[in-house]
């Protein structure tokens, strides 16, 4: 997936000279995950800029760069460290268009990886997308595969609004698929039906889509056909797409890595429960991380939701009547 992201960056930098990249270690080093590998050599210092170690200044200055007429893409090394820039993202970037009543759109893309499974140090895996989903003015999207990542990033870079682009850390190397070499965009504001099914709807985003798909495989071996939905966009939420997918089966499982309480699964489950109330055959199940900090590497396999938990939840919804 990291190649797909690099591909999107390179493509858009070639097509639009207003695009500039800012972040820690993104220059000569090419980023801690190599997302920007080669871009410094290709586009030079003025378009690929290594920033001092200060997330607030990365985001805050990216907003200023946008106001100056450029299209900054900021990389934060791990989503957990966006907390250092929380005030700049939430109260500044997300508000500038509204505060200036349309004069200063904040066309800033903020890229950051998140999620567990690759034994990172503390705070590196934190899945905190729901904290950002609550912020009017900000878009929050999370691709689930290389192909999706490229198209969604290109789309985000052309979006007039600020986009927090959450990349699945464990997908960087593990997820592989053929990705078209040309530029393309995707309907990132619409849910994607990953596979069609009639018995139970599995709803996920980011790396959890893969988990949902594997659970769907397991369920299929039991004769259960799962409808797998990738939200793509966490905010704004594609309510119609979500409701249609939920109503398709009347039985829903929402899956994410973040802790249960006030995770974005709550919004998904609340929306379905309220708006598809009469179509629901069973309570919406949430398969999530527990209400605990993401642990050190040795315990992450216990923490992370797995196929068996998703399958068990799906079975519970199927057993309900």
């Amino acid at each position, binding site marked *: 997936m990291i190649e797909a992201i690099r591909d999107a960056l390179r493509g858009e930098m070639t097509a639009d000279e207003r695009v*500039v990249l800012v972040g820690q270690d993104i220059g000569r080093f090419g980023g801690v995950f190599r997302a920007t590998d080669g871009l410094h050599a290709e586009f030079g210092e*003025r378009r690929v*800029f290594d*920033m*001092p170690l*200060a997330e*607030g*200044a990365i*985001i*805050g*200055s*990216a*907003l*200023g*760069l*946008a*106001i*100056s*007429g*450029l299209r*900054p893409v900021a990389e934060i090394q791990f989503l957990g460290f966006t907390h250092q820039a929380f*005030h*700049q993202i939430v*109260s*500044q970037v997300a508000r*500038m*268009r*509204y*505060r*200036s*009543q*349309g*004069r*200063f*759109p904040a066309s800033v893309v903020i890229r950051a990886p998140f999620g567990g499974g690759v034994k990172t140090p503390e705070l590196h895996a934190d899945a905190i997308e729901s904290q950002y989903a609550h912020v*009017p*003015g900000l*878009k929050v999207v999370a691709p689930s595969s290389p192909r999706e990542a490229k198209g969604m990033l290109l789309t985000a870079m052309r979006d*007039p*609004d600020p986009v927090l682009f959450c990349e699945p850390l464990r997908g960087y190397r593990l997820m592989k698929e053929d990705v078209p070499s040309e530029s393309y965009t995707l309907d990132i504001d619409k849910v994607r039906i990953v596979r069609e099914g009639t018995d139970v709807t599995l709803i996920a985003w980011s790396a959890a889509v893969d988990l949902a798909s594997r659970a769907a495989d397991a369920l299929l071996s039991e004769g259960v056909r799962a409808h797998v939905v990738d939200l793509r966009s966490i905010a*704004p*939420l*594609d*309510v*119609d797409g979500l409701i249609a997918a939920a109503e398709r089966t009347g039985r829903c499982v929402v899956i994410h890595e973040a802790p249960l309480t006030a995770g974005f699964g709550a919004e998904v489950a609340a929306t379905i429960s309220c708006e598809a109330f009469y179509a629901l055959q069973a309570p919406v199940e949430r398969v999530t991380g527990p209400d605990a900090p993401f642990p050190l590497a040795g315990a992450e396999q216990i923490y992370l939701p797995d196929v068996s938990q998703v399958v068990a939840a799906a079975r519970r919804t199927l057993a309900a009547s």
Partner: protein
Amino acid sequence: MSVSLTPQFPSLAQRITPLQLLRPDGTLVGGAEAPLDDVRLQDALRLMMLSRAVDDKGVSLQRQGRFGTFSTVKGQEASVVGSAVALDPSRDWVVPQYRELPALLRQGLPLEHFILYYQGHPAGGRIPEGVRLLPIQISIAAQLPHAVGLAWGLALQGSDAVVLAYFGDGASSEGDFHEACNLAGVVRAPVIFFLQNNGWAISTPRSRQSSARTLAERAPGYGFDGVVVDGNDLFAVYAATSQAVERARAGRGPTLIESQTYRFGAHNTADDPTRYGHGDTLSGWIERDPVTRVQRYLAARGQWSDEIEVQVRHGIAATIDGALAAARSVPPPAAADLFTHTYAELTPRQVRQLRQLSTTPAAAEGR
């Protein structure tokens, strides 16, 4: 301990006195030349007086419930105006905090926008196309990284524009101040950090805000120059800012200017400055009133008189009345104003919420 170290980095603050060109009595400091001619100076004075008149009007409207909580400039007019007039509004930018009304006006913001804003109308945030100004910033110091990015971005695109960012002594304690200054030093952004040290952050005195002798001496820690100026001296502020503008325009990077001044009034209209000793030093500062200083200078040159003053005040009153009338003519906020400009387009949920709100009684009543 056998080794005794002499301080490698003693504070240099004792060695310096704030830059002053115009004394409180309106005479020039020996050897100084006036950096502004009489015509430009009269314009600047008019702007200072307009600012003070808006302050007074705003406070009285606020007491009548016809204006929201706002912070007066009173006492700091030389600091704001002296710096703002060093810019070229047709290319340079102002990035304000919330206490810099005359700088906003000088950049071209219509006064009625400012009034609407403090009357709580969402449309008050609008900045007309071509006015090089960021919105009023409520979150202390959060504007500073924006100013750096803006300055840097303009330079990257080949412009010779300069960005002037305002903030207070309190703001200098926020992490955003530090991160912004450090980044500006690294990219040599054409930005001026204009620190209005008005002695207070609400009730917190400067002495409690930091143990640094001056705030300007932080500049070498970011690789650029710091300057302390008498913030009630329009000439000194103008001269220091002009030099910083020149430097920035020439690609020689940022400057930190500490403008030492004093707010004459309360922190804002919700504040009670008698509770924290604000008055103890006030009278000394009132003797150094930035407006009368310029009036004295001009009067000594035959360029200011009671007649001129009356005329100027008339003009100012008319300006304010006109702006108030313009603000009154704007329709009250409606439900749509909550959503428009949140995103480029309304989200599906917003569309639905707008529909619901447009039919509730509160919306029907207008504000």
